[in-house]
């Protein structure tokens, strides 16, 4: 037990980073789930991985200088561009159903990421995009994640009622003089920023997990927006903490272990919901 704790403490920066990603993604995930844009989250995560791959590919060719030297820069550009596209309703134009556009984005971005990595001179394995590399998070990475998460969470705390109103009833919000497009774009922008930064450490699967499962757990267990945010955050942090702690002694990949714990928590929440609804 003591050895396990010591080993986990060796990776305390990684654990802290995972907790930050869990926190930021779970807050945004409440909007993602309630607004039924779950697959926008998946597509943005995949776009982010394609952005990283594009950065590595161009850097290998000596193109782009500083911009491609840091893969997250390309990931940010590509993901935010995608977020803005979906944010202005770009997925619903031209006679193609919005979910089909999201599907096309997901598929093309996934394939592009793999192809670009295959031809990148740095030659890293593409599995890292799916599974991430939580253990590789350093002190500097956690500080960067902190610098991203704090402003995003502050924006969402300060403008909670604005985000809620335009998400719940955009028509009435518009008659109140709200710039619905601006608030939508801001929501998608924060989503894009968080996904772009989280992706490079957590991978597509774990980011998608934190965007969806904690919010679903919140919906199952809580009533009211405050309750859902609270349960979503708590369950995401618990999944990150326990999943990470389990992965170290059992030598399991940390991302999938955290996802498995998230799934178990959501399943338990479903059981509790069923039990309480049949009892009442």
């Amino acid at each position, binding site marked *: 037990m003591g050895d396990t704790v010591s080993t986990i403490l060796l990776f305390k920066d990684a654990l802290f980073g995972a907790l930050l990603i869990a926190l930021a993604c779970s807050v945004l995930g409440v909007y993602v789930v309630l607004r039924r844009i779950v697959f926008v989250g998946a597509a943005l995560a995949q776009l982010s991985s394609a952005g990283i791959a594009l950065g590595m590919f161009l850097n290998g060719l000596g193109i782009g200088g500083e911009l491609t030297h840091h893969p997250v820069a390309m990931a940010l550009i590509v993901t935010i561009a995608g977020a803005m596209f979906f944010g202005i309703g770009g997925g619903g134009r031209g006679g193609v159903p919005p979910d089909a556009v999201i599907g096309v984005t997901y598929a093309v971005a996934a394939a592009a990421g793999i192809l670009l990595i295959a031809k990148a001179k740095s030659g890293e394995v593409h599995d890292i995009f799916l599974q991430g590399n939580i253990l590789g998070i350093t002190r500097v990475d956690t500080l960067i994640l902190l610098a991203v998460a704090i402003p995003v969470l502050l924006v969402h705390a*300060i403008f909670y009622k*604005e985000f809620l*109103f335009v*998400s*719940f*009833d955009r*028509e*009435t919000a518009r008659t109140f003089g709200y710039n619905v497009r601006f608030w939508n774009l801001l929501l998608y922008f924060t989503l894009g920023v968080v996904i772009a930064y989280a992706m490079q450490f957590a991978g597509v699967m774990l980011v998608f997990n934190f965007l969806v499962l904690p919010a679903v757990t919140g919906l199952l267990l809580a009533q*009211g927006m405050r309750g859902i945010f609270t349960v979503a955050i708590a369950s995401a942090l618990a999944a990150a903490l326990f999943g990470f702690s389990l992965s170290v002694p059992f030598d399991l990949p940390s991302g999938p272990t955290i996802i498995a714990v998230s799934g178990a928590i959501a399943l338990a929440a479903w059981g509790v919901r069923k039990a309480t609804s049949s009892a009442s």
Partner: protein
Amino acid sequence: MTATSLVRFDHATLGYGRRVVLSDLSFEIPEGDFLGLVGPNGAGKTTILRAILGALRPLSGSVTLKAGLRFGYVPQRDSVDYGFPLKVVDVVLMGRYDRIGLGRRPSAADRDLAVQALAHVGIAHLAEQQLGSLSGGQKQRTLIARALVGDPNILVLDEPTNGMDLVSTTQILSLVRDLHERDKITVLMVSHALNEVANYVSRIALTMEGAFRIGTVDEIVNEPTLTAMYGIPVEVDEVHGHRIVVARRRPTGEMPRVNGESPRNGPHG
């Protein structure tokens, strides 16, 4: 614009891009009016509504609103996302958001006003219920309470009885009429159901495929006017003081035609 006028259309032509939906509209909504905006789907009701709410600029002419005019807007029920886990009182509080200001939270006084608004529409006891658990009529009352809590000059209801049963429809229309008579609030009610609106409002604006007529209920709900507007023979009956508009029955197999034109949608849209 007269002193009591809240909204004034002055030779306004409305449309989207190059497509004209309604042209040369001139009318006013005076303070204290109870106006029904009626017409079938696609006839331009929403276009007029958007122009009134300031979401659509006229292609030509003008739409003028009284300075400081505050709308109490009740959207179509389907435009609200009932998947959001919100308490009824929290939904009503949204009607105070523009007064509360950007980035600020509602105060206890705002909450009290929201509960009062719920009491005004007869559902104060539902304040702590989840919106999604309410019946259609209760949801509509919640949205009306939200419109009222902002202390509007004009209550604008978009298809308030759409998809409701007879009892709920009657209750909601009676509530709106009571609000108009008791609180002297100006009401604009948009609906495709002429029979429902005609028995509650004071004036009717009828729009049909580019045509537009406005007047008192007597001026609009009569056989010559409706027959000309709908393009089919229309009968106006009265049962227990209620006007009922019906398309006149024709022999089986005979297609209704007036003045050689093709039939338009009937009174029910």
